[in-house]
């Protein structure tokens, strides 16, 4: 019964061009500005830094783009990251082989996502509400597991994931880029992508087309959990420690990146290219302002203004 305004849709093609080009211009603007402000900004070392720093947000933003395009939302990703991280630490600490622990941590992430998926897709509960619930509950579980103590001390081979490099490029960055590319192909060229967009536009019509909407939606949430698990592995490897507060509040960063990237908050429209640019913009902004020594308090104000300026253009 909620008919969308017809006129807006007519401009869809031009919106697409605008979103991406605005983001590219914005990113370029930031790069130019910061390189005039700090001689250290445009160095290989620093660029590598930025890329490594955004891997956590970037990895989680991939499935989040799917989830939001499909018309839902996942606020529990930070808690899932925390849960996977401490699961990994806990298992390894209690004598499990590190790689087995890694796999089990991923499984736990996917299971947590499946719990969301079950409630939201199968039982048709509101995504925001459910994931606020799991956000609180899973974080609680993290504290039950760790009793608040960080778990550290992993084998050197494990540190390669988060700290190692291949041909000078950090391994975590390579993985993030690869997953972004795969996700891009999936959403552009496969059924899953079509279903995701269509689900966000008109779920009823998808159901009437004989497609199992429960399965598709369920899958997006499992993905979300799994990727939060992947992010957790890199997190633990990079910081050499699984802390109970790991990933706390990260959902806001991730959602901000996805929204800056032009994905429509009510679903149906969005792109991974945009998300990738959104992630880079946030990372660059933080890094550049840090190099300038700007206090985070002003950084968040600047981020706030940026959201208003960048995103408002696209959602008119």
């Amino acid at each position, binding site marked *: 019964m909620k008919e969308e305004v017809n006129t807006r849709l007519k401009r869809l093609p031009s919106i697409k061009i605008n979103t991406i080009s605005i983001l590219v211009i914005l990113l370029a603007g930031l790069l130019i500005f910061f390189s005039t*402000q*700090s*001689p*250290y900004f445009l*160095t290989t*070392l*620093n660029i590598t*830094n930025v890329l490594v*720093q955004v891997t*956590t947000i970037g990895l989680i933003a991939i499935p989040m783009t799917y989830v939001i395009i499909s018309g839902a939302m996942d606020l529990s990703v930070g808690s899932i990251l925390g849960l996977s991280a401490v699961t990994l630490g806990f298992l390894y600490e209690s004598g499990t082989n590190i790689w087995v622990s890694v796999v089990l941590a991923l499984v736990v992430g996917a299971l947590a996502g499946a719990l969301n998926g079950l409630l939201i897709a199968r039982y048709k509960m509101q995504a925001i509400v459910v994931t606020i619930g799991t956000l609180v509950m899973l974080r609680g579980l993290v*504290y039950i597991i*760790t*009793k*608040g*103590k*960080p778990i*550290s*001390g992993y084998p050197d081979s494990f*540190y390669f994931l988060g*700290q190692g490099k291949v041909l000078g490029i950090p391994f975590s960055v390579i993985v993030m880029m690869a997953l972004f590319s795969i996700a891009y192909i999936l959403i552009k060229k496969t059924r899953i992508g079509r279903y995701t967009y269509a689900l966000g536009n008109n779920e009823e019509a998808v159901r009437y087309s004989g497609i199992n909407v429960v399965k598709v939606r369920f899958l997006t949430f499992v993905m979300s959990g799994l990727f939060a698990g992947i992010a957790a592995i890199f*997190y633990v490897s*990079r*910081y*050499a*420690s699984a*802390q*109970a*507060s*790991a*990933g*706390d*509040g990260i959902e806001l960063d991730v959602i901000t990146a996805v929204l800056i990237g032009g994905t429509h908050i009510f679903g149906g429209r969005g792109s991974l290219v945009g998300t990738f640019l959104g992630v880079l913009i946030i990372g660059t902004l*933080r*890094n550049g302002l*840090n*190099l*300038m*020594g*700007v*206090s*985070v*308090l*002003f*950084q*968040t104000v600047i981020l706030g203004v940026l959201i208003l300026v960048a995103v408002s253009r696209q959602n008119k």
Partner: protein
Amino acid sequence: TETPSEGDTGGDAASTSKSFFINPKSIGPAYWAAAEKGVKQAGEDLGVEVVFNAPSTTDSAQQINMIQDMLTRQVNGVGVAPNDPEAVAPVFSNALSQDVQVVTWDSDAPDTDRKYYIGAATDAELGEQFAEMIANQIGGSGKVAFMVASLSAQNQTAKVDAATAYLEANHPDVEVVTTVSSDDDQQKAYENAQNLISTYPDLKGLVGFAGAEAPAAAQAVEEAVNAGNIEQGKIKIAGFAVPSLVKEYLENGTIEEMVTWDPSKLGYTTVYTLNLLTDGEDVEDGMEIPNVGSIKVNGDIILTGTDVLTKDNVADFGF
């Protein structure tokens, strides 16, 4: 008030003089704002550039990202109050490999390559001091509850562990009924105190392990007394306090005594130490630091000392 922003001195400052990055656990809380004053003061006194910055939440990952960024900027030294003492190890060794001096302050990371830890006292000492203070006030027996800012912050858990062990060993009749966390949220701390008073009718003491806890506890106790739910003086309060926050409670007798230290002294000492280290010098036990006083150096630990806060001396503290 001075803004924490440093502006655009980045480029040339590095070539003309030294610059240090002083990194608290987060930006915003007034405890760190007080510390910043000492840091800035030291920067001026010593003629070095200081950048005081941290994430807006006590997030370990963001904190490490920021340290990494400042290493890129080629600062000469960093002073870190780590949110996760284990997680900073890689970035510290990275810093050392670039000849950057590293110290920790306020909260230690003993298993890393940091040169010194600068604190008011060690966490163990503080925990024991808190324990002794509450045991003393309640007469050596009865139920007490612990109030912490975080269930996962290492400097909180270390103090709690020390306090618990100390009570078990020295005051076996004191029972620690529970530990509640405020997650650095004052309202939560306040509600926690209210709920504790309600839950344990025979509660005799509340121990605050962070800055927001004691005033919240005092506020709740005072209200309960005013409402006639408990008698005046039945619940004692001990632990750490910022003098200006508990002034009225000390004066009206809700609180008898608290442990305190001046975060700005920690900040000053941190910059001072980094300055010495980058000059190739070192700290010495009993050394006088301007604006701070004499310090105790014990191995790789520098202690500036604590004070006991009472209603008689509370007015003397300038923070």
